């Protein structure tokens, strides 16, 4: 595996925690995504150090925090920032991954058409027109199928409780 592939592997591995840290500091998913991309450029420039680092996750998180502090400094130019505490801060544990795994277990039990509609609508973020065209069904039929899929999920959650 060459250095570029190793770099990609490290970024893929730590990107979720980098994104979560940026969202926690900036309270905005879109701006957090920009901060992570900027941090990626910094990591690329220092890739030799990153590849040699013992704790690559800490290295990545540190660079993301620095980028977030730069954004916060511009945002709050009149108020002094406690940069040291921001560097030391850690986000609360995120249970989104656990909820996603639970959702996938339930979606796998649905009929095929309902499963496809739920995944295309929420995971792939496709529009109603795109889904109905791809599945070859009318928009009315699509709305009906989606409604049934959500009812099915509700029932499964009630049974689990």
């Amino acid at each position: 595996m060459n250095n570029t592939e190793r770099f990609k592997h490290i970024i893929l591995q730590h990107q979720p925690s980098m994104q979560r840290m940026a969202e926690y500091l900036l309270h905005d998913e879109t701006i957090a995504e920009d901060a992570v991309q900027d941090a990626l450029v910094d990591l690329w420039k220092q890739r030799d150090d990153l590849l040699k680092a013992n704790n690559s996750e800490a290295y990545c998180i540190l660079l993301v925090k620095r980028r977030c502090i730069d954004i916060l400094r511009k945002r709050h130019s009149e108020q002094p920032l406690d940069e040291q505490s921001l560097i030391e801060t850690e986000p609360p544990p995120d249970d989104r991954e656990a909820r996603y795994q639970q959702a996938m277990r339930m979606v796998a039990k649905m009929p095929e058409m309902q499963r496809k509609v739920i995944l295309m609508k929420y995971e792939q973020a496709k529009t109603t027109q795109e889904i109905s065209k791809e599945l070859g069904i009318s928009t009315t039929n699509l709305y009906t199928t989606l409604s049934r899929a959500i009812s099915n999920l509700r029932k499964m959650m009630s049974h689990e409780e």
Partner: protein
Amino acid sequence: MKNKNTEQQLEQMLESIAAHGRNVRRQERLMEQIDRMAAAKKRRRLWPYWTAVAAAASVALVLLWQPSDQEYAAEEGSKRVELPDDKKSIVPEEPIYTASAAIQKSIPTFPEEIPEVSAEETAFEFSGHEEAPEPVCDEKATEQPHETEVPHVVEIKTNSLVAYSNKKERSKQKAPIKDLLGNPLPESNYLLAINFKTAGRLIQSDLE
């Protein structure tokens, strides 16, 4: 409350599916960005070689398109006006606009008969003073120019003097052929500009 709790959990579950999808697309964009940065790094490493290749290709193209000396001379020669036959033997047949053609071509010699100048015309008293003698004027040189075409330039054996005869000037001033020092020369002596490029321009300007 249970329904509200269920609804809240359902909403969070659907949001977790959406967030996972957004993150997948985010990772795809990051991978594309890494590929672009890696490609840019590779381009930066190779640009000196590509620059050298482009420069060599440009030079090769220029050399290929540039006409050779013979092609250039042939093109310029087509613009030349034909001289009468009696003067062609003196003036080289081929245009001599290029140095290479002139060097290759044999240089015509002076006519064998050189008009003699009488002793009275050439005699002068050397007074012992360091004065330059007055130039000797050849009577024949002051005569009206022949009606037949006189070559404008002729080769001279020695390279020390370069002169030319301007037909317009001569007809206007009725002056003999003179060298650059102002010394008149017999009409039978013809001079050719040693600087072949100058000759080309002179001949061209005379013929126009």
